């Protein structure tokens, strides 16, 4: 019970069972219905995993949505507008994304300003720069880009409606879990978020840990930006804007503490599943579509409440888990 992902697992299973009963006969349990929520969860999950890791280390990244949009327009401009190989745009996007993460990290650790504010400012700057450059160069903020060759296979292929993003997500979840639970770096991450001062005194390079994690969260956003742009053959500067909220929501549903120091990658995976199931499931209920947002919000609130309750129960048995 003391494991941080238990709450996320319970939420995901509960939401799934609810929709399997209420909407199972209306297509939710069909192959398309299943691929719908797994695809949604996987794209969100790719952003949420490194965002969750960063939150465990005690910092936020609100610029991920803007990085998805910037990546999208860079890839579409290079490939769709200038007719260069998709790999040129992908490479530039990775460099730009890593640069944004590096800036987020360096500014946050050197100024000691809250990362909430630093990355909020970065979000606005990246949004503005994307639209400014895209419109000056191409006269558009939305550009078609139809993928070709190897980039299509790696980022935009699917099997019977199951997208390749699921493989990326699974690989990143395994990598993240290994890093967090089996390596010294993972110990440093938890220590940095638990008490940065104590961690520094114990010799943990907290600044370096945070900078690396800021770069990682930007790169997660870059990957999703590439996948979405090439899968839908269209780049747009506003793409991904809502990951700012949903990625943090997925991490919190999965048991990551907003205050840092506690959480797991597997929990974040379950959090992404919960969001994916709830946000797709409501469509299969066949209810009035006007109520969709209301129910998605309600399910998320219930999921976090349930998680909180489970964690408190766990605290009773294991004094080491913060409430």
């Amino acid at each position, binding site marked *: 019970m003391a494991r941080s992902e238990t709450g996320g697992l319970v939420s995901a299973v509960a939401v799934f069972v609810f929709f399997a009963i209420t909407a199972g006969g209306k297509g939710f349990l069909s192959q398309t219905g299943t691929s719908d929520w797994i695809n*949604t969860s996987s794209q969100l999950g790719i952003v949420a995993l490194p965002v969750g890791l960063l939150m465990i280390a005690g910092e936020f990244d609100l610029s991920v949505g803007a990085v998805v949009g910037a990546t999208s327009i860079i890839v579409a401009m290079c490939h769709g507008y200038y007719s260069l190989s998709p790999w040129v745009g992908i490479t530039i996007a990775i460099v730009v994304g890593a640069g944004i993460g590096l800036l987020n990290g360096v500014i946050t650790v050197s100024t000691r300003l809250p990362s909430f504010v630093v990355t909020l400012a970065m979000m606005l700057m990246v949004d503005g720069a994307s639209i400014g450059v895209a419109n000056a160069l191409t006269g558009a903020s939305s550009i078609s880009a139809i993928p070709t060759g190897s980039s299509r296979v790696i980022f935009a292929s699917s099997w019977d409606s199951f997208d390749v993003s699921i493989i990326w997500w699974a690989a990143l979840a395994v990598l993240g879990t290994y890093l967090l639970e089996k390596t010294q770096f993972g110990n440093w991450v938890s220590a940095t978020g638990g008490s940065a001062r104590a961690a520094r005194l114990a010799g943990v390079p907290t600044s370096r840990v945070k900078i690396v994690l800021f770069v990682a969260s930007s790169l997660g956003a870059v990957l999703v930006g590439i996948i979405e742009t090439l899968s839908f053959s269209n780049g747009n500067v506003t793409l991904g*804007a809502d990951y700012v909220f949903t990625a943090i929501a997925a991490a919190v549903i999965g048991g990551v503490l907003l205050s840092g120091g506690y959480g797991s990658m597997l929990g974040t995976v379950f959090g992404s599943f919960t969001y994916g199931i709830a946000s797709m499931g409501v469509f299969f209920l066949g209810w009035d579509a006007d109520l969709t947002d209301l129910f998605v919000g309600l399910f998320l609130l219930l999921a976090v409440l349930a998680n909180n309750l489970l964690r408190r129960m766990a605290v009773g048995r294991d004094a080491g888990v913060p409430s």
Partner: protein
Amino acid sequence: MSTRHRHKLVAGVAVLATGIMSLLVGISPGPASAAANNIKIVFVSGPLTDSFFPPLYNGAKQASHDLGISFNYIPINEGDIEQSSAQTMEAAIAEHPSAIVVGDFITSVVDPLIRKAVKSGIPVYVDQSGQDQWQRDGAFGFVGQQGPAAGAAAGNEFLRLGSKDVLCIDNVPGNPYLTAVCDGLAGVLKRAGGSSTILPLPTADATNPLKVTQDIGAYLASHKGITGAFAENAADGSDAVAAVQAAHLGKTVQVGTMEISRLDLQQVEAGQMAFLINEQPYLDGYYGVLFAYQYVKYGLAPVGPVATGPAIIDKRNIAKVLSVTKRYPGVLGSD
């Protein structure tokens, strides 16, 4: 990279550099004749992040360049549209321009400010939205597309294709213009014995094409009998095509959309998208500035509203449209 694109790249970098330089030294770029002409037009309209508006902006910019006047575009923030509609219009009035061109999206907020501007001696031209209010507000003209007319045009296309029960996909629930389009569509279908329901896309999904595609697919799966899907922006149109293809409904569900993107055009060419409703936003921008200029200078203006849409793009004229998009990107719609 083609020569044309390379030239545009150089031009784009030059624009950025000029912009940064002018910010640094505190002057604004513009043709030398701007001062001589002494006409300044402020244009209040939608944000460039919305794929509809870059062509409008490009048209307005081109007109001000051609006419040699000074020009300022103030974008409304769609995320906080009421408050922002008021602020941007207040800012436009405070600049004391020769004329204001405004997209009257939230009429209850913008109408009093149009009257305020007119009262203080600034002529106002209403552009793209506000077709029912402009005369009452004292504006000197309107150019754009009437929402119900766009919906009705789409409805007639669906009827021509044999689709009577059509889903209207609303990407900005609560936007009165988009609701009017869906209502126009529903009116035509109902008169022909059909029906239309609105699918409001959740706001959290608006920037996620995977979600939009799957939302549409799931709705079609749980509501059998729908034979048409109509989207209100270019990206949602191609997402609707993707949803229909994924569900193997390409033969039963016809797809149409407002707005233009290169992908939409290719889908029309490939027969996956039935038609596009084109408002010709470049003309909204160009004519808005041109008409305001002529009104300020000579007191002349077209009598009554000028319609820039709904023009229809389908298999019959796609070849010509594609050749224009190739030659002049950023004019028809998003690239």
